[in-house]
């Protein structure tokens, strides 16, 4: 793990695993789509509309997981000053925002036929909307300062402060009466979802996680190239005396 904190080693490692992760993403999402749309049965209560679950729930898991990863990376960056932790956090943020957007839109499309409403201000839906704004705030903050180290620090603090929202989202359905139902898969007494529906759900979740990894590796690579460009430009602008420091 600490070996990978070196950007060059990370690049080599990323290049090696990228085709494998991409393969897993395509295979798992493909299988998840076929099983979720064709083979999985309708629900005894919701009928066919339950199929929205196969994109809604994995997206929600990714949205929460990516935010947690950003908070951990931000903590590592603030405490131990790992530069790669900061690069990872920044690269992950737009992907997390994307998954949160998918969660909100597909949830709304699921809520209309089942609950009878596109949106309600219950604790679960509201806290996920706050998560979306936290992602947007984080991305905006990263681009707000001229000085990249200052924006990195400010954004890391925001990511850590915003982390309180993550347990609130997870347990909002247990702590307060909400319109949203409690968890079906991640619960202490085991899933309350039939295997024929759990399989496409887990396949799609695997596919989304692998797709996230592909995006992350591409974006980290891009960020490291951008860093090299900045360093080179600094050298060329300063010329002569600064070359040794590059």
């Amino acid at each position: 793990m600490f070996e990978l904190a070196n950007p060059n080693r990370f690049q080599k490692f990323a290049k090696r695993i990228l085709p494998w992760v991409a393969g897993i993403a395509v295979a798992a999402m493909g299988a998840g789509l076929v099983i979720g749309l064709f083979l999985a049965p309708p629900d005894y209560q919701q009928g066919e509309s339950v199929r929205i679950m196969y994109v809604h729930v994995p997206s929600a898991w990714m949205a929460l997981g990516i935010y947690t990863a950003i908070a951990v990376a931000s903590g590592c960056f603030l405490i131990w000053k790992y530069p790669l932790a900061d690069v990872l956090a920044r690269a992950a943020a737009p992907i997390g925002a994307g998954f949160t957007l998918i969660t909100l839109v597909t949830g709304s499309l699921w809520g209309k036929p089942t609950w009878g409403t596109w949106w309600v201000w219950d604790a679960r839906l509201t806290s996920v909307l706050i998560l979306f704004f936290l992602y947007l705030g984080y991305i905006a903050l990263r681009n707000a300062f001229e000085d990249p180290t200052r924006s990195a620090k400010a954004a890391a603090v925001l990511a850590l402060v915003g982390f309180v929202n993550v347990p609130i989202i997870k347990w909002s359905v247990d702590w307060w009466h909400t319109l949203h139902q409690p968890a079906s898969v991640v619960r202490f007494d085991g899933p309350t979802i039939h295997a024929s529906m759990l399989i496409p759900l887990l396949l799609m979740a695997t596919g989304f996680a692998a797709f996230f990894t592909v995006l992350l590796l591409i974006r980290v690579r891009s960020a490291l190239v951008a860093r090299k460009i900045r360093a080179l430009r600094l050298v060329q602008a300063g010329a002569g005396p600064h070359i040794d420091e590059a």
Partner: protein
Amino acid sequence: MDRIEAFLTMGGYGEFIWPAYAVAFAVLAALLAWSLRELRRNERTLRNLQPNGPDGRRE
């Protein structure tokens, strides 16, 4: 034909299911396209900055 139609209407829920899948995969595709474009642009800029070619100058 009937089976295809039944599949598309999804027991009356097609108008909710298909947009949900469309939105999800459109967002993911957009993220991929944007990230790849950014990577290509940065790599091109780097190549232009390094006259000796991409491997001409290692850190």
